[in-house]
């Protein structure tokens, strides 16, 4: 345990620092400075305009046969399971992974920093998208949130994520993926109050071809990210 303590403290300190940065973000000229220089400023709290259980609202996902079978099994489980034993990992407070964390029905905040874009999610996860040109880490261990790097293409932030584990679902109906998942997100402000995100999902082990889906997010100028402790009320009986 001891050898993990410094890392734990570091992560905790980073999380609180980012939270403080976020709280002061709307008032602080320092927090806004990097974004006003060369790139669009996406600072603020964003919330999905329309929530759907399926990430693909039209047509069937182009799944490999084994993944299609698993998806059908999970879809049945989520509609027939005991309410106290939900099969969805998110309902058991497991991190939602990328990209699902973006389109859960919870708000998230963007904070711009010098070398990264930071996303603070109400589900108590901080996502860091490095924009300093460092590229993906070598031999990255698969994790829930993966390894994200970003670059600006004009007014669009392009985020490339790899290094994801296969423990998460892509939607609330259980759309599966593997650790070969590669996600490209293109975020663009279509007007002051609207952010458009285009998600391209490429996972040759689970899908027969790459596919893309779009989501719109509304700016919520009066909101801030609050504490949300998913596991708090584990036992109520």
């Amino acid at each position: 345990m001891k050898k993990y303590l410094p890392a734990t403290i570091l992560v905790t300190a980073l999380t609180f620092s980012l939270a403080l940065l976020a709280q002061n973000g709307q008032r602080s000229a320092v927090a806004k400075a990097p974004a006003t220089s060369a790139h669009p400023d996406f600072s603020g709290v964003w919330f999905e305009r329309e929530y759907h259980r399926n990430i693909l609202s039209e047509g069937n996902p182009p799944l490999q046969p084994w993944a299609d079978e698993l998806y059908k099994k999970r879809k049945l489980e989520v509609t027939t399971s005991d309410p106290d034993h939900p099969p969805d990992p998110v309902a058991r407070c497991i991190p939602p992974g990328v990209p699902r964390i973006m389109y859960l029905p919870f708000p998230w905040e963007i904070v711009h920093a010098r070398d990264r874009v930071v996303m603070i999610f109400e589900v108590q996860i901080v996502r860091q998208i490095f924009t300093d040109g460092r590229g993906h880490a070598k031999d990255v261990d698969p994790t829930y949130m993966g390894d994200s790097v970003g670059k600006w293409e004009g007014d669009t932030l392009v985020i490339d994520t790899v290094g994801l584990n296969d423990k998460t679902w892509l939607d609330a109906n259980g759309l599966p993926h593997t650790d070969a998942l590669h996600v490209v997100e293109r975020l663009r402000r279509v007007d002051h109050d609207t952010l458009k995100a285009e998600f391209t999902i490429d996972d040759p082990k689970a899908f027969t071809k790459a596919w893309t889906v779009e989501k719109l997010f509304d700016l919520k100028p009066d909101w801030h990210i609050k504490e949300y402790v998913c596991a708090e009320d584990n036992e109520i009986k």
Partner: protein
Amino acid sequence: MNKAAAALTLAVSLLLGSYSAFAHHARASFDVDRSITLKGTVANFKWTNPHTFIFLDVKDEKGSVDEWRIEANSPNMLSRIGWTRELMKSGDQVSVTGSPAKDGEKILRLETLTLANGQKFDGQGINGGVGHAE
């Protein structure tokens, strides 16, 4: 097994035990095509993540009382649409409309709460009902 290992085993067992009674319910657990209304007395109002709960004593036509568990969204989302932790207290008379659990348990996914003074509150969120905790 030494004491430390025994304590660890116990801690893990307790952790797994609490997980098995997990109370974070997916919307799919409820029959969202059905809507029922219950009137009753608030036994307990729990302003707790990830869901807010109203434990409601509901009297049937024969006079016997059943306790229903009414599930609303998280305090975070509800506070953005006017709820507060002091919205209700034990003994208050309220009416709730929502979807019952598919498995027949006395659990309701709240759509609308009506207080004794007639004030109504959305039980899930915003944007026309979007914003449910899954």
